[in-house]
C-alpha cells in the first residue's frame, strides 16, 4: 500500500478497500517508526490528522454519482513547514517561529485540505526560512537522506523529499526559490515541479524572496505531481502577484506522444562543473527521449553563469526586507532580557535567527544601502533580464530544455556546511529558472554509486502541463522513479 500511486490510492479509497483513517494511520505509524532516524517531520499531530481523515471518510461515504468526492479526498500528504496552517505549529525551520501556532491557513493549505479533502500528516523539516541546499540550516537539526543516512537530502524542501522517498507520506508540498523543490527531488529520487511564478498562491507561505518564491508538488511520479498540482493552483486575490488565468487540468495531457518534441540542450549545462557520472545518466535519459520520438538541438544560455551571483544579490535583498517583520513584537520569539526597544530588536533577531539567515539579511541590507544600490541591486536586476532573455531566445528553437538538476549526487552531512559559496554553487543549474520565472521539474534518471540522479526539465511560461507530459512519457518507458530506498522497499 505504501508504494501505491495517488491514483491507485484514490481508487482503493473510492472502492472502500481502505478508509482514509486506515491509510493515514499506516503512514503515521511509519513516521513514528522512521522519523527518529530521518528527522523529516518537525510536527506530527496524530489526533488532528485522524480528525481530518474521519472528515474525508465522511465525504467519501456521502459521495454519489451526481456529487462525487474530490479525486484525492482522503489521501494523506505532508506539508512543508513554510505553509501556515491554522492550529498547527508553523516554524519555517527557525527558532524565531518555534512556538508559532498559525492563526490562519495559507491558500495552498485551504485548497488542498478544506477544498480537495487531502489529509495532513504533519509539517516537514526545512532549511531555516528556506535558505539552504542541504537542510542543515534548520533549527530542528538536519534531515537525513533515506538513500544514505550519512548524506543530506538536499534543500530547502529536504524534509518533504526525505518523507516521500522513505514513504512516510505518499506525496508532499515544497517551495522553490532557487531550486528548493528540484534539487532535493533529484537527491532523493523524486519527481518535483516548480510551476511558473504566479500560478500557485503565495498567501500564507512564509516569504523568503517574494519575486522568486513558488510552491509546488513533490511526489513519486509526474502523474502524482499533476494530480497534486490540480489542487494547488488558481487565482488568489490575497496574493498580489497571483495570475488570473483559466484553470487547467494537468492530468488530461499526460499521455500525449512525444513525437516531434524538440529538446534544447544548453551547451553551458553540458560543459565543465558537473560530475561525469551524473552527466552520463543525464545523457542516457536524453537518448531515451530520442527513442520516444524527440529530437535534440543545441541552444545557448550565455548568461547562465551569472545566475548564482545575481541571485545572491536579489534573494538576500528581498529577504532582508521580508524578514524585517520578525522583531519580537507581534509574533514569534522575543529575547528574554533587553534594554530599550532597539536593544530588544537586536537581541531578538540575534538569538532568533541562525547563521545562514543572518548572513543573507546582512548581504541584503548591504546591497540595498545607500551608495551600493546601483552597483549591486540594479546591476543584478539587469542581469536577471539578460538571463530571462536567454530563455526567450532558446525557446525559439526548442519546446523544452533539459540538463542536470544538480551537479552532483547527495553530498555528506557537513561536507559543505562551513563554506557558504560551495553550498550556493549546488544550485547552479536551477537558479536561472527562478530568475526568469519559468516552470522547472526534476525527474529521476539513474543512479551513481547507489545515489539518485535528477534530470531537469525547463519549460516555457505556463508549460507545466507539457513538462508533466514529457516527464510522464519518460516514466512510462523507464522505472528509475519506482526505485525505493531499503527502508521503503
Amino acid at each position, binding site marked *: 500500500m505504501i508504494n501505491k500511486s495517488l491514483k491507485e490510492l484514490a481508487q482503493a479509497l473510492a472502492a472502500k478497500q481502505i478508509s482514509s483513517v486506515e491509510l493515514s494511520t499506516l503512514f503515521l505509524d511509519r513516521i513514528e517508526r522512521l522519523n527518529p532516524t530521518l528527522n523529516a517531520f518537525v510536527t506530527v499531530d496524530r489526533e488532528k490528522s485522524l480528525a481530518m481523515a474521519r472528515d474525508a471518510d465522511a465525504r467519501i461515504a456521502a459521495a454519489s454519482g451526481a456529487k462525487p468526492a474530490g479525486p484525492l479526498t482522503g489521501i494523506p500528504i505532508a506539508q512543508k513547514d513554510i505553509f501556515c496552517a491554522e492550529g498547527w505549529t508553523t516554524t519555517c525551520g527557525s527558532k524565531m517561529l518555534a512556538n*508559532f501556532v498559525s*492563526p*490562519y491557513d495559507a491558500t495552498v493549505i485551504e485548497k488542498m485540505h478544506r477544498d480537495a479533502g487531502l489529509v495532513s500528516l504533519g509539517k516537514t523539516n526545512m532549511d531555516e526560512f528556506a535558505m539552504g541546499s542541504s537542510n542543515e540550516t534548520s533549527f530542528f537539526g538536519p534531515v537525513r537522506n533515506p538513500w544514505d543516512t550519512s548524506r543530506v537530502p538536499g534543500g530547502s524542501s529536504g524534509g518533504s523529499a526525505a518523507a516521500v522517498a522513505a514513504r512516510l507520506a505518499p506525496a508532499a508540498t515544497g517551495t522553490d526559490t532557487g531550486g528548493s523543490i528540484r534539487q532535493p527531488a533529484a537527491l532523493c529520487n523524486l519527481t518535483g515541479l516548480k510551476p511558473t*511564478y*504566479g500560478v500557485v498562491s503565495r498567501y500564507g507561505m512564509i516569504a523568503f524572496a517574494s*519575486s*522568486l518564491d513558488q510552491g509546488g508538488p513533490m511526489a513519486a511520479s509526474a502523474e502524482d505531481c499533476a494530480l497534486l498540482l490540480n489542487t494547488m493552483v488558481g487565482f488568489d*486575490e490575497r496574493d*498580489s502577484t497571483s*495570475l488570473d488565468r483559466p484553470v487547467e487540468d494537468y492530468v488530461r495531457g499526460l499521455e500525449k506522444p512525444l513525437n516531434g518534441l524538440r529538446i534544447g540542450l544548453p551547451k553551458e549545462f553540458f560543459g565543465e562543473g558537473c560530475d561525469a557520472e551524473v552527466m552520463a545518466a543525464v545523457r542516457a535519459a536524453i537518448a531515451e527521449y530520442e527513442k520516444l520520438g524527440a529530437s535534440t538541438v543545441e541552444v545557448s544560455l550565455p548568461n547562465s*553563469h*551569472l545566475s*548564482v*551571483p*545575481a541571485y*545572491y*544579490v536579489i534573494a538576500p535583498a528581498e529577504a*532582508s526586507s521580508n524578514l*524585517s517583520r520578525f*522583531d*519580537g*513584537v*507581534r*509574533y514569534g520569539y*522575543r529575547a528574554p532580557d*533587553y*534594554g*530599550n*526597544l*532597539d*536593544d*530588544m530588536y*537586536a*537581541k531578538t*533577531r*540575534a538569538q532568533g*535567527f541562525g547563521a545562514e539567515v543572518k*548572513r543573507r*539579511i*546582512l*548581504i541584503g*541590507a*548591504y546591497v540595498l*544601502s545607500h551608495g551600493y544600490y546601483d*552597483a*549591486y541591486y540594479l*546591476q543584478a*536586476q*539587469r*542581469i*536577471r*533580464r539578460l538571463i*530571462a532573455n536567454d530563455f526567450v531566445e532558446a525557446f525559439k528553437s526548442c519546446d523544452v530544455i533539459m540538463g542536470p538538476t544538480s551537479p552532483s549526487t547527495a553530498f555528506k552531512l557537513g561536507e559543505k556546511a562551513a*563554506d*557558504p*559559496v560551495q553550498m*550556493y554553487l549546488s544550485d547552479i543549474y536551477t537558479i536561472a529558472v527562478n*530568475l*526568469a*520565472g519559468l516552470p522547472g521539474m526534476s525527474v529521476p534518471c539513474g543512479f551513481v554509486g547507489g545515489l539518485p540522479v535528477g534530470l531537469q526539465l525547463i519549460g516555457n511560461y505556463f508549460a507545466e502541463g507539457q513538462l508533466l507530459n514529457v516527464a510522464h512519457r519518460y516514466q512510462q518507458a523507464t522505472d528509475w522513479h519506482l526505485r525505493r530506498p531499503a527502508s521503503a522497499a
Partner: protein
Amino acid sequence: MSLTLEQVKRIAHLARIEISDDEALTTQGHLNGIFQLIEQMQAVDTAGVEPMAHAQDVYQRLRDDAVTEADRRCAYQSVAPETEAGLYLVPKVIE
C-alpha cells in the same frame, strides 16, 4: 571589493542584529567570500538593459475600497509575545 570589520558592524546595526566582535570577524570572512562570487557581475556591460524586478509583466491590481476581512484581533494577538488590553507591549519608545 572587501568589507571592513567596521562595515560589517554597521550593516548588522542597520539590520538590527546584535553582533559580537568574534561573530563580526567570522561573518566578515564569509561575506567577503560571497561578495567575491557576486563581483562577477561587475564585468558585464548592462548599459541600456531595463532592470527586471519581477518574472511577470503585471501591474498592481486595484480593488474596491471595501471591508473584506472579519475582525480577528484576538486570534492574531494570541501569538504575540506580550499584549495588554488589545495592545502590543514594547519597551518605552519616547523617554
